[in-house]
């Protein structure tokens, strides 16, 4: 909301300049900034008119000589009201006027003009002006115009949702008053004894209070400048004098008002009722609204004439012919107004205030204030009035215990100060023992319990005056630890640190996915967002893959040759939210290196490298890599494996299926693992020291020829069984895979192994090793038909 500095100042006397006022308001909970000075004139000074001549080549222009006391200037001027000896404002060369008008030295019809004599319009003070602004005769010359016409400042205030009472100049002034301990001075509001009306009928539950005032004989026309000016500063358009006053009182006192043209109503009675389903009303904004029974309307016998608290109907609006008006000042059901405003997607200055709640007494004050001003500005007579209360206003009384203040705040406020602050907040006090009974003013519907009052005290006193001693210690703090005291499960920390060392980058993605994207990857979704803002967040991700794959493509499109990412986050599956970790890698394993380029080595991520990474980062031996029995459909069925923990498959890895990656030439490796079973497993406690031999290792290489179709894991199985049956073969590794049709048949393949032997107690002899190798070969031959390559 925008408020005028000058207006506030009229209502209460304070010493702050606009900037200071903004920080004072901010410090008591109303975040305020100075929008701009309403006008800023640089280089505009007062000058005296010394000489006036007709322009030789233009009928309507004059050549003037003016002086600021030091220099004189030649100015071309078109104003008819100019005369000798006047004091007028001169925008000198270099001045900038509202609307970003820059003043330059120009020639007008052949005559030099060293600036411009200004009208109120040109200075941004009026919307239309006749002639230049003539200042008082005694005005000094050569001084900045700003110093004579002190312009206003506009403040933008952000009021928290609980403080509807601050949505007016009066509201802001009350807050300033509490801070500086002064009472605001309200304008004089006259009340009259007028006949009572009984034309309004209210259905129960809709409208606690309705005040209607009948004013007849008004003359609708344009508003006086002070009204237009005030509205403009708050960002409200001027319409006509009657409507403008309604709006003026709203920004003055906070009560939204509405005015009906009595002659346009089809009945003498006015009803405040629920709308009928599918009832239609064209509003003042020319739009048609379809209503339902959860909305309140003001209606005559035939039709709705306003959507209560939100907007008036076009039909009953005020126009130039209006003579008799019915002025509404009311309180409506807050919930219904809120719902209606959301449903119709119609947020107005009025609905904004109603939703936040209004003070019981302000309604009455505002009705008299508006009636007074309408009569003053548009003429007419207050004919009659109805104040319909469908509920009884009950005062809120809250007890405040002195002792509780310091118990909550942690510091003392003196009793006198407590009493003073509460008084200036408009609270009526009665002392009772160690307690004050506080009668809360009607506009403060946010104060409901004792602690609300304590906040008022802290707020008005200022949070920043509370000391924050950093050595402040409490002795009775017992610390409680929850069972899960780690931010990340330990296994995630293990993954992150290892991958970081391997040169991988951590990413974070949104938790949302598009259905279309999931379908492409063969993924199902389990959670659909009821109210998504766009396609991008229509479902919750069931896997980290869609976003990681997108990240990959994005970076490839930027020309990256290597992408290696990992992410930790939640995925949303049929079993609810699951902690998940994933790795994606593609492209060159290392950047190109001159030494390797010489040998034409450019290593790229493939299944084997990726699987090596997975094996390397798994935190303990309890994780086994096994054949993938149920691979996700996004994997290449022949290039995938699974990670098994305690006999359960917990993760899968592999190369993404060519069906998905399409044109991408290089392999994309992906690994995803569910972490919920290891939430608090600390893997460093899971391995034990084993004594090792200090005797030397004997290495032997052997090459064998196997059937090409034989699963390699079968060979491994045989070797492992063999290793377990003797205690000298300790390790084997694959050192070459080789096929050569010239040497052996094409359905055969050769593998070379490096075998490491060691005996824990004695040094091995050649004989022992040779015997063992022979035994191994025998086993391979018997079980798998594998022969030694000769």
């Amino acid at each position, binding site marked *: 909301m925008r408020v005028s500095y000058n207006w506030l100042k009229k209502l209460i006397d304070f010493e702050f300049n606009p900037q200071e006022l903004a920080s004072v308001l*901010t*410090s*008591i*909970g109303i975040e305020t*900034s100075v929008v701009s000075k309403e006008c800023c004139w640089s280089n505009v000074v007062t000058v005296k008119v010394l000489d006036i001549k007709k322009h030789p080549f233009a009928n309507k222009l004059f050549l003037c000589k003016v002086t600021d006391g030091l220099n004189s200037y030649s100015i071309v001027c078109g104003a008819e009201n100019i005369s000798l000896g006047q004091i007028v404002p001169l925008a000198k060369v270099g001045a900038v006027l509202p609307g970003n008008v820059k003043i330059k030295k120009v020639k007008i019809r052949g005559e030099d003009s060293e600036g411009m004599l200004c009208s109120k319009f040109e200075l941004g003070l009026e919307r239309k002006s006749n002639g230049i602004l003539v200042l008082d005769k005694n005005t000094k010359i050569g001084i900045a115009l700003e110093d004579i016409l002190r312009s206003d400042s506009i403040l933008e205030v952000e009021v*928290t*949702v*609980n403080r509807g009472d601050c949505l007016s100049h009066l509201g802001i002034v009350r807050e300033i008053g509490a801070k500086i301990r002064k009472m605001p001075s309200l304008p004089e509001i006259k009340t009259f004894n007028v006949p009572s009306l009984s034309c309004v009928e209210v259905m129960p539950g809709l409208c606690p209070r309705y005040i209607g005032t009948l004013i007849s004989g008004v003359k609708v026309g344009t508003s006086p400048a002070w009204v237009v000016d005030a509205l403009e500063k708050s960002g409200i358009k001027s319409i006509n004098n009657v409507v403008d006053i309604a709006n003026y009182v709203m920004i003055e006192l906070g009560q939204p008002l509405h005015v009906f043209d009595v002659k346009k109503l089809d009945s003498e009675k006015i009803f405040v009722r629920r709308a009928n389903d599918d009832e239609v009303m064209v509003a003042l904004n020319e739009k048609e609204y379809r209503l339902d029974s959860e909305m309140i309307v003001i209606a005559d016998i035939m039709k709705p004439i306003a959507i209560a608290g939100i907007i008036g109907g076009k039909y009953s609006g005020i126009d130039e012919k209006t003579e008799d008006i019915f002025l509404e000042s009311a309180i409506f059901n807050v*919930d219904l107004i*809120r719902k209606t405003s959301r449903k119709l997607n119609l947020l107005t200055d009025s609905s904004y205030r109603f939703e936040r709640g209004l003070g019981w007494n302000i309604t009455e004050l505002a009705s008299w204030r508006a009636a007074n001003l309408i009569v003053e500005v548009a003429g007419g007579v207050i004919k009659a009035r109805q104040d319909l209360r469908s509920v009884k206003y009950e005062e809120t009384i809250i007890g405040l215990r002195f002792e509780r203040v*310091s*118990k*909550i*705040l*942690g510091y003392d406020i003196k009793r006198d100060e407590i009493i003073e602050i509460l008084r200036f907040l408009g609270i009526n006090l009665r002392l009772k023992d160690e307690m004050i009974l506080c009668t809360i003013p009607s506009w403060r519907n946010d104060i409901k*319990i004792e*602690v609300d009052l*304590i*906040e008022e005290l*802290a*707020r008005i006193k200022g*949070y*920043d005056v*509370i*000391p*924050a001693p950093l050595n*402040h210690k409490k002795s*009775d*703090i017992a*610390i*409680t630890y*929850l069972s*899960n*005291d780690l*931010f990340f499960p330990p296994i995630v920390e293990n993954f*992150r640190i290892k991958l*970081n060392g391997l*040169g991988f*980058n*951590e*990413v*974070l993605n*949104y*938790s*949302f996915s598009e259905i279309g994207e999931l379908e492409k990857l063969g993924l199902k979704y389990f959670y659909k967002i*009821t*109210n998504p*803002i766009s396609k991008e*967040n229509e479902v919750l991700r069931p896997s980290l893959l869609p976003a990681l794959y997108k*990240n990959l493509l*994005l970076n490839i499109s*930027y020309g990256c040759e290597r992408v290696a*990412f990992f992410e930790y986050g939640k995925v*949303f599956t049929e079993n*609810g*939210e699951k902690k998940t970790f994933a790795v994606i890698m593609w492209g060159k394993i*290392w*950047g190109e*290196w001159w*030494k390797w380029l010489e040998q034409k080595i450019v290593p790229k991520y493939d299944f084997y490298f990726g699987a090596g990474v997975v094996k390397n980062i798994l935190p303990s031996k309890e994780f086994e890599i096994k054949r993938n029995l149920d691979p996700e459909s996004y994997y290449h069925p022949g290039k995938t494996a699974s990670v098994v923990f305690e006999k359960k498959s917990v993760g899968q890895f592999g190369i993404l299926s060519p069906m998905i990656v399409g044109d991408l030439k290089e392999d994309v490796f992906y690994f995803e693992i569910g972490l919920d079973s290891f939430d608090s497993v600390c893997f460093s406690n899971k391995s034990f020291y084993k004594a090792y031999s200090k005797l030397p290792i004997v290495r032997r290489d052997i090459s064998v020829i196997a059937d090409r179709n034989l699963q390699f894991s079968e060979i491994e199985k045989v070797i492992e069984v063999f290793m377990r049956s003797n205690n000298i073969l300790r390790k084997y590794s694959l050192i070459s895979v080789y096929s050569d049709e010239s040497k052996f048949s094409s359905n055969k393949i050769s593998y070379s192994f490096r075998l490491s032997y060691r005996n824990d107690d004695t040094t091995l002899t050649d004989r022992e090793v040779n015997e063992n190798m022979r035994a191994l070969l025998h086993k391979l031959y018997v079980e798998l038909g594998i022969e030694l390559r000769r």
Partner: protein
Amino acid sequence: MKIGPFFMDNIRLIVNEVVKKIKNSDNEMLESVRSEYFGKNGILTKILKSLSHYSIEDRKKIGFETNKAKAILESEIEKRKEDLKKALIVQKMEKEKLNCSSIFYFPFSKGSFHPIVQTMQDIVLAFKSLGFSVAEGPEIETDWYNFEALNIPKSHPVKDVQDTFYLDGMRSLLRTHTSPGQVRVMEKQDPPIKVIVPGRVYRNEASDASHSSTFHQIEGLRVDKNVTFLDLKVILTKFIHKFFCCGELDIRFRPSHFQFTEPSAEVDIQCFSCKGRGCKICKNSGWIEMLGCGMVHPNVLKCVNYDSELYTGYAFGIGVERIAMLRYKVDDIRLFYENDLRFLKQF
């Protein structure tokens, strides 16, 4: 036989001379020196061989002096050998000189941690060092935990501020803040409580430079007898000093409103970019909002059956993205979720 008057002096003279010689020898010459003096027919060997010709007293003197000379010469030879070896290595190294400019190095890829995760971990660490333990809550929440238990009634304008993503019709929702964690912790245990709840939260709003539909928060909660607003101020001031490691930037506590705290405050930190003078980043205010906090509302305590007369507590919620933006001078929140390597590699 008697030793001549200059016998001993002569030995010393020989030693001096030979030492000089050694210092100018190469490996080959060293061998010839060795045989000349210590060999079978070496001068010193000869002297030792002739000892039997002298009296016992002289034998001792000559023996001592000769052995001393031998020891000196041998150590000189070893020293010289060592020097020659070193000289050789120096020569070798001179030949092996590489171009050491970094362009020749092996191009290991450097890994990185995401700035949001780093910031979150650092905040968690700071609070752990202040005695807080850590808890976690679900991202899919119910209306009860996200709103009602936090004193946010069904129809309340605050629900507009926190536009919510709903799931399964309206049955469940994505939490709009980490505050449901407060309620879950209090349900699980009795005071005293001193806990933080970090996590991901969601708001149904269009993203721009400072808003994102997904972001992270860290909730803090402390409930005990005699916990006051002053304690809250102290703990947050300590945290800010700890986290930003300096008192360079000013902080301010400003009254505000949250349904689940009373009194409520927001904490602003002086704009890092303009140091309070006003700029685009702080929208000319000189201040940047950092967190919301307050004393736990009695209605919230009642919801978990705590005696609000006996126990008081404070709570706070920190926006991780906002702090990360401050910390790394990132001016667009969306950068955190784009995952462009050129961005990620900077952290």
